[in-house]
């Protein structure tokens, strides 16, 4: 995307949070997971497997700096330094560019483990939509991956697909979900699978004078349908959880639930009270959580030694 615009409708706000109830110095192991994706990057810090701090940031065009940016942002309001971390695992598309990590683990494994932490051991199916991919994962009660399906070649059904749409209709991406339900009746979904062709279809609808909310409903429905296809190929087993940015878009989530006939596990994201408390978690940090938990497990079992520098 050529960055010449003044207003950027896709630009969701970056977040960071530090747990006020944990004193990291009292913990045995401080571990970190850094998930560098092609669109967003997250850093998660845990103390003995408890969530201590996290950040959710935009990956810049120069990705080697993204890892430093997100870990520094996570620790900004804490006195914990990167050198105090016992073990750090990098994950995500850009995991080779996480200089502070001692090793890397694939994001499929990390997302399943993270979803298990966020939603509980009853989770058997996870759908994670990243910036440029969509994964459907079946896991066991410990968050171990049993099988998965992933699309990372086609923008349809990925975060970029939604961002491109937000830019086109000039509506901030976080408003699309709620507004898509402010319609008199549910419209037909956008027929083009391809994001580029869907854009032309949307332009046509706008010129026809269709209400924007209806167009948003049509687009969310098309995206939900695409995700449902992937999930049905894999097979959805209860309980089902959604992680990643798309979990914040109720326009897609609710329509996906309807098409699958399965309800997703509740998150705290939609609860305004939780938001004021700084959120127990942001749905985009699943990969980082999984990575930090793997690091903790490896230290606990003596598989690796602490890399703490201070």
């Amino acid at each position, binding site marked *: *995307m*050529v960055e010449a615009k003044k207003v950027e409708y896709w630009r969701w706000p970056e977040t960071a949070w530090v747990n006020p109830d944990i004193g990291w110095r009292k913990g045995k192991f401080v571990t970190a997971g850094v998930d560098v994706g*092609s669109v967003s990057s997250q850093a998660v810090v845990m103390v003995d497997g408890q969530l201590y701090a996290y950040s959710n940031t935009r990956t810049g*065009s*120069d990705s080697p700096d993204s890892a430093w940016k997100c870990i520094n942002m996570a620790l900004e309001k804490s006195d914990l330094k990167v050198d105090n971390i016992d073990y750090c695992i990098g994950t995500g598309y850009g995991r080779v560019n996480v200089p502070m990590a001692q090793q890397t683990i694939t994001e*499929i*494994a990390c997302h399943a483990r993270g979803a298990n932490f966020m939603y509980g051991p009853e989770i058997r199916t996870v759908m994670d939509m990243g910036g*440029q991919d969509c994964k459907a994962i079946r896991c066991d009660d410990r968050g*171990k*991956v*049993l*099988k*998965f*399906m*992933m*699309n*990372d*070649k*086609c*923008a349809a059904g990925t975060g*970029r*697909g939604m961002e*491109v749409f937000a830019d086109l209709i000039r509506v901030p991406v976080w408003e699309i979900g709620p507004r898509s339900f402010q319609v008199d009746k549910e419209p037909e979904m956008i027929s*083009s*699978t*391809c*994001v*580029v*062709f869907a854009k*032309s279809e949307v*332009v*046509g609808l706008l*010129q026809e004078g269709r209400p924007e909310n209806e167009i948003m409903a049509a687009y969310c429905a098309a995206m939900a349908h695409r995700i449902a296809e*992937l999930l049905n*190929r894999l097979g959805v087993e209860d309980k089902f959880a959604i992680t990643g940015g798309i979990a914040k878009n109720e326009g897609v989530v609710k329509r996906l639930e309807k098409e699958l006939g399965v309800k997703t596990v509740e998150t705290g994201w939609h609860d305004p009270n939780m938001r004021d408390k700084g959120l127990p978690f942001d749905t985009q940090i699943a990969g980082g959580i999984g990575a930090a938990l793997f690091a903790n497990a490896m230290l606990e079992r003596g598989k690796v030694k602490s890399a703490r520098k201070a």
Partner: protein
Amino acid sequence: MIVAGIDVGGKNVHAIIAKNGTILAKAEAPSGIKKAEAAEQLYEEVLKQAGLKREDVARVVATGSSGQRVTFADGVIPDAAADARGVIKLIPSARTVIDVGAEEGRAIKVSPEGKVLDFAINEKCAAGTGTFVDTMARALEMPVEEMAKLSLQSTRSIPMNAQCAVFGESEVVSLIHQKMPKHDIARAVHDAIAGRISSVARIVGLEDDIVMVGGVAKNVGFVESLRRDIGAGVKVPDDPEYIGALGAAAAAAAGVLEEKVEAKVVEKEVVEEGEA
């Protein structure tokens, strides 16, 4: 007998008026959102160019993705049929036609009589269509023609991983940030789309002579990349973007007002499966 052929595509409309096998006039214009009106207006223009009135034209055949919208057409034939007829008229030795327009890429096996023997089309994915080229040119911040010429200066191929116009755009921006020379990026763009097109073409088989038509055939960078991929003998006729209209006019002359063609629609398999 005077006939007319109108090709109403996703991006442009092309019209040809012909008499006894000779082109009297041709014209093109953007098709915009209101395709029927664009077709009307262009028909008026091409008639004026030929110095003719509607009554002078014996038959009008339309084609293109919006061919059915042409209210004044006597018949409508599918793009593949129009391409086959049009190419055989210009290059009788043609046996494989590759037609890449704004919104689709198709490959046609043609008989010496200009009939469609086999036909594969990608119309679901923008990569492998002219839209991909347009999008990348925007990312490189230059007109398509400039990007095409620039690509010819490249002497090496850098890998372009994205198989998607949306991801490809991000990849191009990233390559620019990495200070990759623009001529190498331009070539990578054309190589990528040529690769997608050649895999559609291989479905119908690559039998000589292979002829490239449609708007993207005017892209010198793309033609170069395609020749590298499937062979230096690929021919490009003059005015390749008019082939559809020419074929429609040929159908009108032959009294063919409809034609059935079976398409093999190419689905892009994008899902990776695995266990842990």
